[in-house]
């Protein structure tokens, strides 16, 4: 491992920064400036709040799982339900913010990448409603695996650019989207879904998703609960930063991020915070899955949305300071968690969210009846059902 890098912008301790080709530095600087100005403009903040209510469907419920908690015994489980956002995932929150920012900046296109398709759907939806073009870069493997979402994007008028890669996950599409943006930065806003992005995106994403956490906080307060644990699934960590950010530094709440442990053997996984090393990838200095030559390793997990070799710099920072701790859940545990939650609570969550649920289920028996675990559900699992059925048919779980 190398010495620390000293970043000059968007720092989270030694992590973060803006590691990009020169062509993108200034476009990013313009986004950063526009973002700061927007935040100090009350009318923008108000517009954003209203859009979250009217378009996204905020507030989303905090659902107590009484039946499941009773069955398992120990603590009580509650879910923060971003699967009930417009489009079925938390992505709508971010997409709405990007669209408002693009309008403010006078940009006509939203450019981004999508792997599960969730973010693509969210971007295409809001783009359609605000007369913004939407161009999405998608790896060929993801395109084929997520045909339902891709069809939806098409129906919403989004333009899909296929990136020729046989590996699933956002990596290749992300590169292609950024490359495209480098030559179209004056007409379009780059809209990464990944928290592992160059500054200003990590701070922008954290701010624009923070309502997930603050809303959860006021909902637990309302119920007179001070959660023992708040647990979020972590791929690149955008959803996680939105939910967990609010609880960082709390004396009474433990903050947990769950990454994809894949096969559970420490070989095929996407657990950058457990098995990765600090490095620069996707424009930010953070934990990266890499070999001793600094080559990026392919992440692996059943959950396409967690299939990323790196993680947002905030998580790298929190892992280092101990403000949050990061664990893994395996493919098998996650599939079992989807099933368990469906059968006992009637809620079908995405395989991504299921990683956090799996860990939450393990925590419950260690707690007492006055102790609460809040698990963040990043998205609905409707589009996973076909895959689960197939896995079942094959009698395997990867």
């Amino acid at each position: 491992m190398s010495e620390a890098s000293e970043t000059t912008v968007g720092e989270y301790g030694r992590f973060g920064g803006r590691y990009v080709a020169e062509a993108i530095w200034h476009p990013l600087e313009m986004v950063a400036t526009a973002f700061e100005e927007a935040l100090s403009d009350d009318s923008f903040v108000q517009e954003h709040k209203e859009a979250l209510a009217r378009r996204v469907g905020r507030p989303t419920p905090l659902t107590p799982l009484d039946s499941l908690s009773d069955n398992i015994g120990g603590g009580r489980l509650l879910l923060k339900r971003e699967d009930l956002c417009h489009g079925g995932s938390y992505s709508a929150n971010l997409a709405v913010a990007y669209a408002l920012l693009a309008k403010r900046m006078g940009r006509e296109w939203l450019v981004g990448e999508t792997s599960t398709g969730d973010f693509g759907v969210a971007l295409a939806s809001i783009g359609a409603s605000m007369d913004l073009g939407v161009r999405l870069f998608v790896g060929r493997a993801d395109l084929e695996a997520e045909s339902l979402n891709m069809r939806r994007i098409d129906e919403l008028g989004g333009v899909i650019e296929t990136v020729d890669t046989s590996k699933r996950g956002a990596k290749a599409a992300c590169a292609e989207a950024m490359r495209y943006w480098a030559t179209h930065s004056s007409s379009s806003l780059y809209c990464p879904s990944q928290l592992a992005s160059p500054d200003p995106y990590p701070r922008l994403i954290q701010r624009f998703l923070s309502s997930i956490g603050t809303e959860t906080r006021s909902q637990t307060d309302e119920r007179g609960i001070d959660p023992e644990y708040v647990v979020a699934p972590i791929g690149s960590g955008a959803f996680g930063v939105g939910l967990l950010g609010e609880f960082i530094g709390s004396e009474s709440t433990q903050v947990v991020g769950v990454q994809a442990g894949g096969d559970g053997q420490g070989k095929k996984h996407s657990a950058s915070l457990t098995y990765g090393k600090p490095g620069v990838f996707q424009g930010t200095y953070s934990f990266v899955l890499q070999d001793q030559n600094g080559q990026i390793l392919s992440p692996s997990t059943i959950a396409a949305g967690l299939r990323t070799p790196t993680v947002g710099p905030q998580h790298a920072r929190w892992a280092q300071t101990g403000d949050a701790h990061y664990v893994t859940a395996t493919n098998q545990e996650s599939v079992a968690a989807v099933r368990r939650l469906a059968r006992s609570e009637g809620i079908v969550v995405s395989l991504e969210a299921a990683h956090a649920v799996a860990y939450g289920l393990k925590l419950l028996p260690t707690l007492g009846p006055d102790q609460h675990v809040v698990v963040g559900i990043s998205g609905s699992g409707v589009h996973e059902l076909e895959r689960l059925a197939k896995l079942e048919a094959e009698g395997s779980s990867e």
Partner: protein
Amino acid sequence: MTDRLQKLVARPGEGGPPLLMCAVVAGDPHVEATVEYLSTLADAGADMLELIVPFSDPTYHGAVIQRACERALREEVTWNHVRQIGEGFRQRNDDTALLASSYYNRILSLGHEPVADLLSEAGFDGTMVTDLPWNEATPLREALHKHDLSFVPFVAPTTPRERLEMMDAESDSFFVWTGHAGGEVTLSRRDFEASMAEFRSVSDRPILSSMKISSGEEAAEVVEVTDGVLVGSAIVWLVEGRGADVGDRLGALAGELREHLDAPPKDQT
């Protein structure tokens, strides 16, 4: 800056012929061939050579160099291989500048100081790091400067005047202009000339243009407003063809480029 590089960088200002820089990917198709190719290009007239140290995810490069990196990765090109290539080349050539380029994570994996040590020992003159903008480069630059190695900054169509001023003030050698970022060149000739004029108003340092140049004629046109060219894809594409005569074809292209660069400018004679 090394003496070697200093001499070259001074040349355009002294009215000498434009600079020709050619790029090859280390380990494409194998380490010995790379040394061969570098020597051939130098012999045919390249003033500077870029040794692209392959990275698994060459985000900002075009398809040709992406494919070359993939080929090279099968060879697992380590920093030791980079040392071998540098040393091998220096055994045959002492005048042509040699710069290692890569993505930042490859540098970090070894560390700033060790990379600077290695490059210096192996006869390199500096580096270019595609995803390391000037602002983030201080630790690497400091390590390089201890060995008189240069960190070459890029300039893009989006680079504003303040950044040009900052880079000009802090850098020591020359600039590379990238009119694209892996995609097509999107700038019109007029915009390109305007950009170069702006650069000129800020900096006296030479600037080499990297914009998918593939023939002597294109090179000659570009150096009407720049101090030289960096030819990457066109070289690497020849390697992709393989076959026994790759060396001959590389030499021929470099020779053609050299010839057109050295000819007096069309309009101004």
